[in-house]
């Protein structure tokens, strides 16, 4: 054990110089000239304190390490990752959910809007995660099911006056049906070939919607899609005949933010349901067979499993969630057109799954936030945004090919 005097001095100086330049001085424009504004003394005291801390830390490194080791640990701690402990895991989830619930009441309107968009992508990511991450079937046409869901609700609302809640269910069923239909021709395909066929399927749906002008309005899209209601309470200033508005019913003043918050909370509930359902599925035999299928199809057949059923179930269930997300998207936007369902959407959703770590649910959530919020933050880069996107993907492949938070498999301990 010794004093690291040299390195301590060196790091303290580096800290002092860097922070002094970054925090201590500022260039401002005064009239037509640039002047250097020096920060007040409190900032310099903070810088000095930081440099002093770094100096002491480096100087006494060895002692600190030893002291850390000396702290007694509860048995079995440190051996396993903290997050593996089920109780702690539940606590973390609880905190995240409470934070997500509290978020709309603290944030501004545009932030809530963005968060709602994130939640839609989380749903899509979770759905695609079943197909790509768990069952290992590379699906490039996932946006097709999203479109089916959105148009199912929009058309039902337009022609039959169906409300959001029944529309949601109908969209899920319809998308599941399309997932099932797509499943059949691609049963014998794998890898690249599967990707090409699914890519084509996504495009077929979009082009079909574009050209069925009589029914879908073609490129003009469908407008005036009714917004979701809360037990038949409308979120509007004035209610249409025979209905009541939210603010009337609760006797509060009308605020257009109510609807934004309601949409956010609705999306949050949908995401939580999705998370819960998929989590259950993963622990059920069907989830195991998806993964076994991804690993080795022949071995699956040797064990008496039927690959047809496994693949179809993955496609169908994955598509269902896209259908739910689609109908929510249609209701939120109030207007949809085939424009919203281009290939780039599929690519983004797939990127979310890959970025998050195939098969990992929490990874998908994290990646959806990053993939949606980053482009918003990078608005000033305009057309270079996609370039940044690509750069991020390449860097990921180099440094973290397994994804941000790779999948931890649920497992039970063997009884001794």
């Amino acid at each position: 054990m010794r004093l690291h005097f040299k390195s301590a001095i060196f790091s303290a100086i580096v800290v002092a110089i860097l922070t002094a330049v970054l925090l201590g001085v500022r260039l401002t424009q005064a009239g037509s000239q640039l002047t250097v504004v020096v920060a007040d003394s409190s900032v310099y005291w903070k810088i000095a304190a930081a440099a002093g801390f770094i100096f002491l830390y480096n100087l006494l490194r060895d002692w600190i390490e030893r002291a850390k080791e000396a702290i007694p640990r509860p048995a079995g701690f440190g051996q396993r990752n903290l997050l593996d402990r089920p109780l702690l895991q539940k606590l973390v989830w609880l905190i995240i959910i409470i934070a997500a619930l509290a978020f709309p009441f603290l944030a501004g309107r545009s932030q809530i809007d963005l968060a709602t968009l994130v939640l839609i992508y989380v749903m899509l990511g979770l759905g695609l995660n079943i197909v790509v991450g768990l069952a290992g079937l590379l699906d490039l046409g996932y946006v097709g099911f999203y479109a089916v869901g959105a148009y199912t609700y929009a058309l039902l609302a337009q022609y039959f006056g169906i409300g959001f809640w029944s529309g949601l269910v109908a969209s899920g069923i319809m998308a599941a049906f399309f997932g099932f239909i797509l499943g059949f021709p691609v049963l014998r395909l794998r890898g690249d070939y599967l990707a090409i066929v699914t890519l084509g399927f996504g495009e077929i749906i979009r082009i079909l919607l574009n050209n069925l002008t009589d029914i879908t309005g073609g490129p003009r899209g469908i407008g005036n899609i009714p917004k979701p209601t809360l037990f038949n309470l409308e979120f509007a200033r004035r209610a249409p005949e025979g209905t009541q508005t939210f603010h009337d019913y609760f006797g509060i003043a009308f605020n257009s933010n109510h609807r934004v918050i309601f949409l956010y909370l609705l999306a949050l509930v949908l995401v939580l349901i999705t998370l819960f359902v998929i989590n259950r599925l993963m622990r059920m035999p069907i989830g195991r067979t998806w993964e076994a299928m991804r690993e080795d199809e022949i071995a699956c057949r040797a064990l008496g499993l039927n690959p047809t059923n496994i693949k179809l179930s993955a496609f169908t269930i994955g598509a269902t969630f896209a259908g739910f997300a689609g109908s929510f998207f249609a209701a939120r936007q109030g207007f949809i057109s085939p424009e919203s369902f281009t290939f780039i959407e599929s690519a983004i959703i797939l990127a979310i799954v890959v970025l998050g770590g195939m098969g990992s649910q929490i990874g998908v959530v994290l990646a959806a936030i990053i993939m949606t919020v980053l482009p918003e933050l990078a608005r000033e880069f305009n057309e270079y945004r996609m370039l940044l996107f690509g750069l991020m993907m390449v860097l990921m492949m180099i440094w973290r090919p397994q994804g941000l938070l790779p999948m931890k498999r649920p497992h039970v301990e063997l009884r001794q």
Partner: protein
Amino acid sequence: MLQVSNLNTFYGKIQALHDVSIEVKRGEIVTLIGANGAGKTTLMMSLCGDPRPASGDIIYEGQSLLGMPTAQIMRQGMAIVPEGRRVFARLTVEENLAMGAFFCDDKEVREERLERVLGLFPRLHERFAQRAGTMSGGEQQMLAIGRALMSEPRLLLLDEPSLGLAPIIIQQIFAILEQLREAGVTVFLVEQNANQALKLADRGYVMEHGRVVLEDTGANLLVNEDVRKAYLGG
């Protein structure tokens, strides 16, 4: 128990099996030896329904397997350890074994079987939470056999379990097959390692160019002049 009669199998126009007839009786270990490309694996795969034989019949426990889809055949109390092991690489040992008992709904029965398999392969117990793909070849082969045993098969088909393994591991694997015989499992073993296989087997078949050319007890085949020349290095 298993009766294959006059089986003919084609890959496209090429005939891989010519009038193959084989019988496995209950409680026996029967081995099938032959050189590369003799049709050993094709016969094994025909038993599993892929490729489908063009003619002949496969009777298993009094029931014809012909025309059944593979997945159904594999649920008739028969299990296969496929060539090249084919464990689920990114699943853990535990999950691999659980997949083997997929069609058993009774949790207690499943745990009983698990205990038995882990008793047979203590190594798998040590590796219980490890991903299968990170284990050695021998351990993976043990896992593949263990996975097949999890369905409690009455007939176990093994396709070249010694493929690519160190001699000492091969010894262990064959010792376990011996144990299985004592436990009452019928074994049909396809092997290139003729010496080991014939020592273990009650009866053996020799295959050449898609035909069964010899059939005798294991001990007799071991001393048979032709077999010695062709497969046992003179």
